[in-house]
Every structure is written in structure tokens, then in C-alpha cells.
């Protein structure tokens, strides 16, 4: 079928571009550029979510990762430097070990993945997934505990990060 192969072409193009930008994120010397490539990666992953019929996940990805976390990372990069360019090598002397570990990991996982017969795609998604998600998040038989615990966790993260990042009175 024609429509089927169109989805596959889009997937291949987006996936390759995303992996390429991710490669730039982990290798580029200039950290601001790395952060901007990270944004491109995150956007590519949002497109992958769209391909998976998870529109809500795609928008959340853009609101949270690109709109919030990426901005935070760019701020942090700028706060922790004295010059515009990053000079000197950006990887430590064990970089070859990292390469080997990552390559072995990827090879092992992908041989494992391709040796399994995965289920084919079940039919189209029925109903509004956002609605179902909203109900399950406050349903006592489902995920109400993770939901409330997540809010407590975020408060703890807020308190911790503010305590750490707020300049102390004595350091002024």
C-alpha cells in the first residue's frame, strides 16, 4: 500500500536526522551549539511521537523539553563559563572506553531486538487518549498514587534546586 510506505519513509528520514543531531549533541565542542542540536533532537523525537499516534506526548515533549528544559540547559551553559567559545578538548581521556561501551550496548540491544518476533500493529487508536489518560491519573484503582507522588517529588526537586542555586548571603 502506498500510504504505508509513506509513513515508513517519513520515519526513516526523521529517525536518521534525529540520530545525526544526537551525534552532534554528544560530539560538538561548542556547548551552546550542543544545546541547540539537543533541541533539534527533541523536536525529532516529538515527530516520532506523532508517528506513534501519541499527539499529546508530542506536545508535552515540546512544551516541557524544548520550552522548559532546553532553556534551562542553555541558561546553565551560559552561567558556567567565562568566554563565548569552549576551548580545548571536550571529552576526557577515557573517551575510547565510552565509545566501546556505547557501541557494544547498541550492538547487543539491536541484535536482541531483531531476533524477536514483535507483534504487528493493532488497529487504529479508538477514543480520546487524553481523556483516558486524565481518568486513569486520578482513578484510585490506577495511577492516583504515582500522580500525587509525582507532585510531591516535584516539590522536593523545587525546594532542593532553589536551595542549591540561590546565592547564599555569605558569598555576596
Amino acid at each position, binding site marked *: 500500500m502506498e500510504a504505508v510506505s509513506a*509513513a515508513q519513509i*517519513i520515519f526513516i528520514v526523521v529517525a536518521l536526522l534525529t540520530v545525526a543531531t544526537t551525534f552532534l549533541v554528544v560530539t560538538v565542542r561548542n556547548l551552546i551549539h550542543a544545546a541547540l542540536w539537543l533541541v533539534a533532537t527533541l523536536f525529532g523525537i516529538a*515527530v516520532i511521537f*506523532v*508517528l506513534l*499516534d501519541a*499527539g*499529546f506526548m508530542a506536545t*508535552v515533549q515540546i*512544551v*516541557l523539553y524544548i*520550552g*522548559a*528544559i532546553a*532553556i*534551562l540547559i542553555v*541558561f*546553565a551553559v*551560559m*552561567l558556567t*563559563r*567565562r*568566554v*563565548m*567559545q569552549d576551548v580545548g578538548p571536550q571529552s576526557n581521556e577515557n573517551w575510547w572506553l565510552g565509545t566501546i561501551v556505547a557501541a557494544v550496548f547498541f550492538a547487543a540491544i539491536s541484535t536482541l531486538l531483531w531476533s524477536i518476533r514483535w507483534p504487528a500493529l493493532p488497529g487504529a487508536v479508538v477514543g*480520546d487518549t*487524553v*481523556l483516558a*489518560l*486524565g*481518568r486513569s*491519573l*486520578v*482513578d484510585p484503582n490506577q495511577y*492516583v498514587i504515582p*500522580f*500525587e507522588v*509525582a*507532585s*510531591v517529588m*516535584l*516539590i522536593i*526537586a*523545587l*525546594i532542593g*534546586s*532553589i*536551595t542549591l*542555586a*540561590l*546565592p547564599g548571603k555569605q558569598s555576596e
Partner: protein
Amino acid sequence: MSSEWIFVGIFLILAIIFAIIPLVLSRVVAPRKPHELKHQTYECGMETVGDTWIQFKAQYYIFSLVFVIFDVEIVFLFPWAVAYKQLPFFAVVEGVLFILILAGGLVYVWRKGALDWV
């Protein structure tokens, strides 16, 4: 992939093309007479020495930190708001509890003085 997202993709690409057209047009039409003085960074009077680096206030960072946490919580609330009409009363109360915990965090940062612009 549902067809509604195809339109979004097409439309975003069109938006980018529309933003590039005036830039290309001006590149074609506008004169280009480069001069060393023109390409200097804007500065009040003297020429800039060194790179752009400023010790900006940590306050900017604090605000974006608070924003990240709030953003996550609000995104959690969107599915709840969509399901709101079909939820029983106690489920709504659970959502309200979630908001109140969030408000507790706001009170903490406020008390701590992290929201004061100094």
C-alpha cells in the same frame, strides 16, 4: 499517523518558507557595501574588547527553575481538566490536592525570598 498532524507539518514548513522569502528578497535587492566599521559590534562609544561574557544575575536562572517545575505540574493537569466533566467529586478533589501541593511549593519559594528581585 492521523491526517490532522500532516496539516500541521505542512503548515509549519510553509510558515518557515514564508519567513525566509522576505530575507531572500532583501538579500537579492538590498545593496551590500561591506565596511569594517559597519561590522563592529554595537557598543556605546568604544570598541568592544574580548568576547561577550557577562556575569548575569542568578535570578534569571532561579525564575526559569521555578518555571520548569510549574510547567511540568500544569502539563499533568491538562488530561485531568479534559476528563473533569466525567470525574466523580473525589477525583476532582485529588486534582485539587495536586494543585495545593503545587501552591505549597510556591509559598516555600516566596518565603525563601527566591522570588524577590534584588
